[in-house]
């Protein structure tokens, strides 16, 4: 990829721009909700009108030299807030402004607007307030004890990806689909016909709104053209204006049109609400390839021009940090990254190898742009050429943490098992961190992380949580009451099912609040069958509707259970009383015991069945508790195993644990072994990780840290490729490589100023090392280096 001065400048601007809170959206949404009109409308139409109001009145931002236009806020990194979802207090704003990591600057004007306009109107009325008032005391106790987090308290459910369909049509034809759907409403036998009509009306308004917004951009571009001195740029501006008048109203015919088309859609989704994982173009190499090929053949697109367009497109993602969070959510996923994961490779809808020229071009863009957002991954199938993987390793080698590697066959099998048809499955991929989804057809919501080791901690203490001083769990007995390992596991199972019930009950209520108060008519246009069903994305309108609960700490709980089984029940090396006292003392005065637990006890991650059997046990109990339980959108709950950064938060709410871990330290992440306990190398880690039946999840995360020396030459690339393919032949879902050496990281901790560009793989995504909290930095340093 050739980085032109234009792209270089835009990239630098994006890197230099300071994250700020913009009150624009909050103010506009407040004005709209205060209006007389708003009060009279049904929920979907009200939300559609709000969407229209935002797009009609928000400032249009055209950055100098850019080819793709549109910003969520008034300028790059000026970040919108969503008071109807969760309202920042003045104190929250102060914290955001002053916190060291992942800050958002808040100026006085914004503070005043919040104080005088926004807070007075929304106080007690945000959906977060609604959710919290609807939760049971049991839910609150469990939530406060740190058994689970709640995804929807500060962000709207999103977790969906644009499929190929929307890349080949415009909103004028979508309006036609809506018209037909309204016409075919059956008021005689369908008792939902009225509600469907309201929803479809709302969708139609949303179509008009996004077209209107594109036209506003066109107007602004034309106006700029009249004062532009440089004839070349003037031409460009006029051409861009023409494109904004064409897309997204009509189907795009060129690469430029396609990128702008997608970007308007992306902006629509993240302006309407603040859905998780922002939004995602998904299989970008597949979508672009057709028009790219056509343009190259007809000579309308040069490689320089293509590079420019892709560079400008990439910068757009980086201009949009994840909306600011507060409270617990801030530590569960504290990052500017908004988890937009570009998928490359995989298979076509017919099952052929999907790697094409565009896949290689985009890998090159990832390598040369080297910015935090968007994230990227490659899908590797049995027929993916080695050359493609080697090219990706070339980028991974640089320690950038991207792209991560996914198993196409596993994704397809996971989706098929869930009842998707084969074409939808092949068109699928992973979004966010590692979450499997059918792109363009599925609403796959993550509902919260679930702290598996915490359940064990409570099981050992009669369900009582010492930190919050609450009887959070069931009274199943104390550690010494369990006469056998099986007894303990029985009690664990009871506790787990109890907390899962609490979580699912909460989910089913929370999902209805979004269906009732916060429909998303615009997002509903983008996911198949919402129009056909006359139902909102937030009410189960999509073809597939899945709710995930993300299990966290598999490695840790496996080691804890193994330590108990090995030292107490099987070998009688220690008694429960000794261990309980050691845990209460956080191992102070019990150092020798701690040493035994850490160094002389089998651990997960070493291909040792004695330990790995517990991983399988925990997995199966978790799976049985969650999988197939109905959600409130006509779909079911399922599990996946990923932590983002919640393993740090979940560790902080826990005391010392039987695996020798000191109180409050992070837990293991994803399905990776606990930091530093795997001492047999990567093949053993892979063997252990593939003991659980990953095909019955919606995604797992395995992190492997390598020093750069594993990426020396062609031979080592081939061996890494073989390592990945081996894991995938064992039905592994995902593996990512963190390529850094500990010395570099330690130095970066000492001298952050010298490492401002240092990006590392955290867990399912990459982040700037400097933006990570110190504990997370330390953990990344500790992770075993396979030297």
């Amino acid at each position, binding site marked *: 990829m050739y980085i032109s001065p234009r792209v270089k400048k835009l990239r630098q601007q994006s890197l230099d721009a300071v994250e700020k809170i913009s009150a624009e959206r909050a103010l506009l949404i407040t004005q709209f909700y205060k209006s007389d009109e708003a009060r009279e409308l049904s929920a979907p139409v009200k939300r559609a009108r709000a969407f229209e109001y935002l797009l009609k009145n928000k400032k249009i931002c055209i950055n100098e030299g850019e080819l793709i236009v549109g910003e969520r806020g008034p300028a790059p990194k000026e970040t919108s807030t969503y008071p109807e979802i969760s309202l920042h207090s003045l104190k929250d704003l102060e914290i955001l402004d002053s916190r060291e990591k992942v800050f958002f600057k808040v100026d006085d004007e914004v503070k005043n607007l919040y104080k005088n306009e926004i807070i007075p109107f929304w106080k007690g009325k945000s959906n977060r307030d609604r959710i919290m008032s609807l939760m049971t005391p049991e839910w609150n106790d469990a939530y406060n004890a740190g058994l689970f987090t709640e995804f929807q308290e500060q962000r709207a459910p999103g977790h969906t990806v644009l499929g190929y369909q929307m890349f080949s049509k415009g909103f004028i034809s979508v309006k036609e689909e809506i018209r037909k759907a309204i016409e075919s409403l059956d008021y005689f036998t369908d008792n939902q016909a009225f509600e469907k009509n309201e929803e479809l009306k709302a969708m139609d308004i949303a179509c008009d709104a996004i077209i209107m917004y594109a036209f506003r951009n066109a107007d602004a571009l034309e106006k700029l053209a009249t004062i532009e001195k440089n004839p070349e740029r003037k031409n460009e501006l006029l051409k861009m204006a023409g494109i904004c008048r064409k897309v997204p109203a009509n189907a795009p015919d060129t690469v430029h049109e396609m990128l702008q088309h997608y970007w308007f859609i992306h902006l629509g989704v993240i302006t309407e609400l603040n859905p998780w994982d922002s939004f995602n173009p998904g299989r970008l190499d597949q979508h672009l390839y057709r028009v790219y090929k056509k343009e190259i053949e007809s000579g309308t697109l040069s490689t320089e021009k293509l590079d420019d367009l892709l560079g400008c497109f990439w910068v757009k993602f980086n201009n949009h940090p994840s909306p600011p969070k507060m409270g617990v959510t801030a530590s569960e996923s504290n990052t500017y990254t908004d988890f937009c994961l570009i998928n490359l490779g995989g298979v076509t809808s017919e099952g052929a190898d999907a790697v094409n020229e565009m896949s290689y071009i985009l890998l090159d863009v990832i390598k040369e742009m080297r910015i935090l957002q968007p994230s990227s991954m490659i899908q590797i199938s049995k027929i993916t050429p080695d050359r493609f993987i080697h090219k990706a390793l070339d980028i991974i080698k640089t320690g950038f943490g991207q792209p991560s590697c996914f198993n196409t066959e596993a994704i397809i099998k996971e989706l098929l098992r869930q009842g998707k048809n084969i074409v939808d499955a092949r068109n699928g991929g992973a979004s966010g961190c590692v979450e499997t989804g059918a792109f363009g057809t599925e609403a796959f919501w993550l509902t919260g992380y679930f702290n598996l080791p915490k359940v064990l901690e409570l099981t050992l203490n009669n369900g009582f949580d010492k930190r919050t001083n609450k009887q959070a769990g069931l009274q199943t007995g104390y550690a010494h009451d369990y006469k056998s390992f099986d007894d303990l596991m029985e009690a664990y199972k009871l506790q787990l099912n109890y907390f899962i019930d609490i979580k699912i009950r909460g989910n089913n209520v929370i999902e209805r609040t979004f269906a009732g108060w916060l429909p998303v008519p615009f997002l509903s246009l983008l996911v198949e069958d919402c129009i056909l069903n006359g139902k909102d994305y937030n009410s189960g309108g999509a073809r597939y509707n899945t709710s995930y609960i993300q299990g966290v700490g598999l490695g840790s709980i496996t080691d804890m259970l193994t330590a108990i089984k090995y030292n107490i029940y099987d070998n009688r090396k220690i008694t429960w009383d000794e261990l309980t006292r050691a845990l209460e003392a956080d191992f102070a005065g019990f150092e020798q015991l701690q040493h035994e637990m850490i160094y002389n006890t089998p651990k997960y991650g070493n291909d040792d069945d004695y330990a790995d059997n517990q991983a399988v046990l925990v997995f199966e109990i978790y799976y049985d508790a969650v999988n197939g339980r109905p959600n409130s959108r006509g779909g079911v709950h399922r599990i996946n195993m990923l932590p983002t950064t919640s393993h740090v938060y979940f560790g902080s709410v826990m005391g010392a644990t039987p695996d020798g871990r000191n109180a409050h330290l992070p837990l293991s992440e994803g399905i990776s072994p606990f930091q530093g306990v795997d001492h047999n190398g990567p*093949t053993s880690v892979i063997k252990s990780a593939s003991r659980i039946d990953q095909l019955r999840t919606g995604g797992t995360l395995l992190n492997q840290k390598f020093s750069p020396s594993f990426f020396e030459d062609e031979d080592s690339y081939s061996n890494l490729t073989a*390592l990945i393919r081996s894991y995938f032949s064992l039905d592994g879902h995902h593996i990512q490589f963190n390529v850094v050496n500990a010395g570099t990281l330690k130095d970066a901790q000492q001298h952050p100023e010298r490492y401002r560009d240092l990006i590392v793989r955290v867990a399912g995504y990459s982040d700037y090392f400097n933006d990570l909290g110190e504990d997370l930095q330390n953990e990344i340093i500790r992770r075993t280096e396979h030297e």
Partner: protein
Amino acid sequence: MEGFIFSVKRYSINDGPGIRVAFFMKGCPLSCMWCHNPEGISPLKETVIQTNRIGTREFHHREDVGKYYSAEGILEILEKEKVFLNQSNGGVTFSGGEPLLQFDFLHETLKIIKENGYHTAVDTSGYSTAEKFKAIIPYTDLFLFDLKHLDEDKHKEFTGIPNGVILDNYRILIESGRDIMVRIPVIPGYNDDPDHLKRLRQFLTETKTISLKKISLLPYHKIGLSKYKRFNIPYRMKQTEPPSKERMKELKEYFSETGVKIKIGG
């Protein structure tokens, strides 16, 4: 029958092609001054003080160096790693120490694992009898053969034994039809003077057959230094510094005139 093995390495990628499991067998007739596996030299049982750390606290305990493995035990480990070995066209490597020092075990084990379809490699100093080499040739797909010095006296000075037998065995193996990869440790001040390099290149070129697949130049390093301390063995090469990257590149260039693929590192 059991073999005495001081280390088992999975995801071994520098001891032959693909992903391998490498078994390091205890006992070596040589005592090279730069040896980075000094714990592999003595064929006897040894113990060592091992230190584990939790934070700044240290825990010491005595640990045996080496464990006994049967051929079946070896096979069991390979079965666990099979998926990686197959996927990468890798296999198993016996290294050391000098694996031929435990000939009976090596012979039997190679035979069994070969029958089970694994690619086998033996990493040898070349110091054993011709009969023993001939006996394992049928069960060994690849020999990793160390060439340290062509000069008999120099060889003896730095490794403790003369090199005549080694060179004879090299000639046997290079004519055997089995694959050979030569490994040359590059030790500054010992074997890297222009005259010796020239002789070495000449020797490799003259004896070359289709069997010779690769020449690896292994730069001297001090990674093993901490082991010397731990095992309380005097380290005689403190003054020697590792060759620079540029120097290694030069040497790679120099040896490519043999017409054989040259690699820096294993």
